[in-house]
């Protein structure tokens, strides 16, 4: 898959796929964002703060941040049945946790901030795309936050550490490491890994991933500024 220092789609080892971010794309949601990342198409929306329901889940001291990751039936090659599968439930959980860290939840007791990530077209890296979109949607909704959450994945293909795996690389590669950070402090809010990496390879991968997240952070900011200028 790697030939003459280039990957199967022609990218360099540390090159991101093409990314396009648009903020404020939905009418009904309080905040929203649409991201096209390589062949991924993900729509994120935020409703909140709003009354947390059912009432027994309300936290009297702060808001609950609930993220729901979902894939449309037609988003993948083999049609996906309606309803959350185990993978979606797991992704929903870890992305909720990442976003909860940055939101000033104490300002909204008993409320919930609902974040929805809808995958319309999948091409490896949907959770990073979703989280990147969700962060923009939260800012668009006027939710008070410490910082953005910027996310990207790194992997290993043919022994080489490469940035932002494509679908083929994800299927045939040796490691996959999605990561999300708070750009200002570089704190890591999401980290998963599966495959095989030496400690050295891991360090290289994380370094590459965090740098890429900073690039993505610039794009997230641009999307919101652009929306304001067009207002």
């Amino acid at each position, binding site marked *: 898959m790697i030939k003459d220092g280039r990957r199967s789609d022609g990218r360099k080892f540390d090159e991101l796929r093409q990314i396009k971010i648009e903020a404020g794309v939905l009418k009904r949601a*309080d*905040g929203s964002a649409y991201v096209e990342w390589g062949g991924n198409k993900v729509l994120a929306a935020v409703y*909140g*703060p*709003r*009354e947390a329901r059912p009432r027994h889940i309300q936290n*009297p*001291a702060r808001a609950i941040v609930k993220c729901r990751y979902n894939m449309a039936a037609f988003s993948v090659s083999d049609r996906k049945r309606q309803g959350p599968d185990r993978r979606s439930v797991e992704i929903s959980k870890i992305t909720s946790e990442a976003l909860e860290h*940055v939101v*000033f939840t104490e*300002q*909204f*007791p*008993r*409320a919930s901030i609902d974040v929805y990530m809808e995958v319309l077209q999948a091409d490896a890296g949907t959770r990073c795309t979703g989280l990147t979109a969700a962060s923009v949607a939260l*800012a*668009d*909704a*006027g*939710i*008070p*936050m*410490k*910082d*953005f959450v910027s996310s990207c994945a790194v992997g290993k293909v043919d022994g080489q550490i490469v940035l932002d795996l494509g679908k083929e690389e994800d299927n045939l590669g040796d490691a996959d490491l999605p990561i999300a950070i*708070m*750009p*200002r402090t570089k704190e890591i809010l999401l980290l998963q890994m599966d495959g095989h990496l030496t400690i050295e390879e891991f360090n290289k991968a994380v370094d590459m991933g965090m740098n890429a997240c900073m690039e993505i952070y610039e794009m997230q*900011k641009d999307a*919101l*500024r652009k929306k*304001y200028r067009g*207002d």
Partner: protein
Amino acid sequence: MIDIEEKHREREIVLPGEFLGENLKPGTGVYNEGKQIYAAVFGVKSVRVNMVNVIPLGGRYIPEINDCLIGMITEIGPSSWLVDINSPYPALLHVTESPWRVDFGEAAKFLNIGDAVLVKVSSVDETKKVQVTMRDMGLRKITGGRLLEMAPSKIPRLIGKGGSMISLIKKSTKCRIFAGQNGRIWLDEGDINTAVTVIKKIEKEAHTFGLTDAISKYLEGK
């Protein structure tokens, strides 16, 4: 670091996590870590004297005591009504806080589901449980006219310094206008269509310079 270009900076758009300055007093829409102050919301940076605020461009209405609001009745209880105030927090209106003498179980005779009311926030506790009252000057059930909604953070712009903007619109259109802190606006009588157009224009251009003059000119032209 004193901001000498206050007027210029007043309309600067900032994003969450953006560094705003140090050795300033933190106001609303910001947070600090030690002496460093950062924006907490997507909004307009505003520096007044030594205090820095960020006014959000969007965001929901969070009730504060003494705010005057436009609410809508959503539920009727034996001795109270539940009022939707366009907030994550519904408000309770007890029958004793209404202008009428309401017998137990008779609340529906006075206010029904879907009715709009002018109310004032009488209390907000630490879990944001809200109570409102109708027993104050000008508070009542409202009927007829038109209801609009805009982002609550832009209502102060609609009202203007000392009510200057809203008075301008009222005078020119001869409308009765009530702007609730919760982003709901009620208009009645007069040239409502023009008033609505002006209000929508203000919402769109809330954070630009020279808005009062622009609106003045527009109304003169009508």
